[in-house]
């Protein structure tokens, strides 16, 4: 590796280099994060957030390995352990991962939600729960049917809810630093520009799905006027939500009376 001649620093030198590597890693992760969000601005905000999170983790893993190597610790064993653990985890949890993965994609791409009536294979019922592994249907006979989420990726799914085609559901993850009230207000203002494509009786609906100390998972539901508008509305709504998220992630300014508005 080519480094400037800093011999007088002696033994501290590797630690300095490792520090520099970590700083560069941090800067690179931020840049790539922004780049991905910008490139994916018309994708589902949920997908864009996952994409940028994945890239960040990858960059940090590489950065940390290089930094560790720089201070003289062998990374061969570390890499081997991480690799084997990963393979073991994949083999052990193959079905669970399939279901969790299917849940992730069905959340994003399959048009049904809790409360809808759906038919999957020979099963039909009202969706009452969607968890990481299965989707629970309540049948007309008051029976619970648990459908592994991977079934939704490999089977024809029919949403029999009346006028289900009208609904466009967009999953959104909002980080805890963002004021949720402000987010809702801004999203509504922005989406009002699409109202010629939306059913005027149903303004945008923002509902909570899950919450943890770091993020709030929400679903934005829009109701389109024409079936043919689904794609264009989805794309435009995704873009607008991403812009609002980006805007609100910038540092906060005070209100006119000098006091910040309540945070989430």
């Amino acid at each position, binding site marked *: 590796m080519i480094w400037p001649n800093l011999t007088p620093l002696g033994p501290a030198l590797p630690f300095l280099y490792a520090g520099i590597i970590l700083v560069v890693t941090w800067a690179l992760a931020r840049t790539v994060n922004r780049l991905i969000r910008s490139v994916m601005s018309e994708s589902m905000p949920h997908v864009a957030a996952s994409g940028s999170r994945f890239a960040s983790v990858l960059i940090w893993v590489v950065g940390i390995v290089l930094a560790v190597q720089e201070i003289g610790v062998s990374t061969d064993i570390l890499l081997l352990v991480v690799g084997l653990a990963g393979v073991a985890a994949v083999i052990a949890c193959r079905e669970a991962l399939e279901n969790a993965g299917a849940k992730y994609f069905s959340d994003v791409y399959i048009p049904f939600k809790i409360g809808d009536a759906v038919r999957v294979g020979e099963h039909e019922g009202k969706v009452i729960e969607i968890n990481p592994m299965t989707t629970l249907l309540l049948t007309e006979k008051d029976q619970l049917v648990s459908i592994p989420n991977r079934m939704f990726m490999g089977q024809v799914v029919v949403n029999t809810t009346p006028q289900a085609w009208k609904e466009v559901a967009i999953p959104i993850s909002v980080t805890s630093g963002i004021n949720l*009230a402000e987010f809702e207000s801004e999203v*509504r203002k922005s989406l009002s520009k699409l109202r010629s494509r939306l059913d005027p009786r149903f303004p945008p609906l923002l509902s909570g799905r899950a919450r943890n100390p770091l993020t709030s998972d929400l679903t934005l539901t829009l109701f389109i006027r024409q079936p043919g508008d689904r794609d264009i509305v989805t794309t435009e709504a995704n873009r607008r939500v991403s812009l609002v998220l980006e805007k609100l992630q910038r540092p906060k300014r005070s209100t006119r009376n000098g006091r910040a508005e309540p945070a989430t």
Partner: protein
Amino acid sequence: MSEAWRVCINTQTPLLQYLDQGLARTVGRDDRPLDLGSYHEGTDYRVSPGGVTRMVLPLVRRLGEMGAIRDPHWVSLNAKGPKSVRYDGLVLHNVEMSRLRMAGYGTIKEAVWRVAHGTRTTKGPDELLWTADFSEFAYYNRATAELLRRLDEANDFDVYYVHDFQQLPVGSMLSRAKPKIFRWHIPFEKGMIPPDWRATFEEYLRHYDMVIMSTDRYLRALRDFGYKGPAKRMFPYVDPKDYTFPSPKEAQAVCAKWGIHPKDQVILVVGRMDPMKGQDVAIQAFATLASSFPRAKLLLVGNGSFSSSRAGLALTKGEAWRAGLEQMIKDLGLEGRVVLTGHVTQPELDALYERSLFTVLPSHREGFGLVVVESWLHRRATVVSDRAGITELLHPGKNGLVFDPTKVASLAQDLHLLLDDPGELRHRLAEEGYRAASPCLLDAAAGEEVAMIREVVGP
């Protein structure tokens, strides 16, 4: 009752309004609620006037005395108050909003209120729910829901009690598994909700575990609207302990402040300055008989609401209406015969009730009309608009007189009847009214509230 419930109340109007700017900016030490012990009611702060706070505060006190609730919290809109304060066993929390957002919120609130009171007309599709103002309305409700959620994380409430139409979306935004009760305080008439709003209202309502309406008619209208969830009728109420009953001499002494002579025949109208309250109808009716009853005086008591106050939303409706009434009084030559008192304190109001011959509720539309109950408590006969919810308790000619507020002559006739009466009719109406008031008194209502909360929360 096995254990006291932890209740979180939510209203738009704050229980307290802060009169002292310094107090409004004060924050409790270490972010703890500010204790109002060292401040003075009346100079530093005052209890907000109005039906909702007048009803909810006594309820909270009574349920606390009964051991039904403990450590209650109360969340409301208040841009000009400390973040949280401790008052009368309650912890009050204020939701803050910038003035700009407040204006948008106020526009929507006013529009919904006008729909409920039958004065909003729109041509073509109604785009209200798509406006920037509606975004601010949603902002306020979401900010409220977020504060309620955070408080629940710290206090583990048993139930939320959400009051009035401005807060309706809160239930759908509050993603907590705790039971939510919603009380609708304004009129809810059949066919009132515009078709374009229907889906939104349905969505908001379905998130509540119980909806309370003030009258049987409103409850029927809610069912006609298509709401299938749990709902009840519960009359609004007051606590008789909140009232004083000064002697005629004491009452006269207080009323001299407004130029009332001991021999004057006082007709009392109590209500905030708002076109919907129909003070204009009362003035016009009074004008037709002022010359026949030279000692009669019409007293209009009340100021703007929280919405029109400077401490609240600062909508100018109240001031504009008062100016219009003053002009009307001048035009009709009734200066000195019609008196606008503005805001009065509770002891002053009690003195006015005691000094009055009878009272009038001339509203063009009134969710309920607790001032009629107050009038009955003071054993005063009352003349009530047939557009007030309380007419469900009125038997015309037996415990009150009822008139059509679109017909000035109808009210004038009733005023004439009571001014001309030697006392027998007024006395009879007042005594029957006093008996009719019982379902609207806290003693009856507290038990009903406990039963309702138990039904929602579980035994």
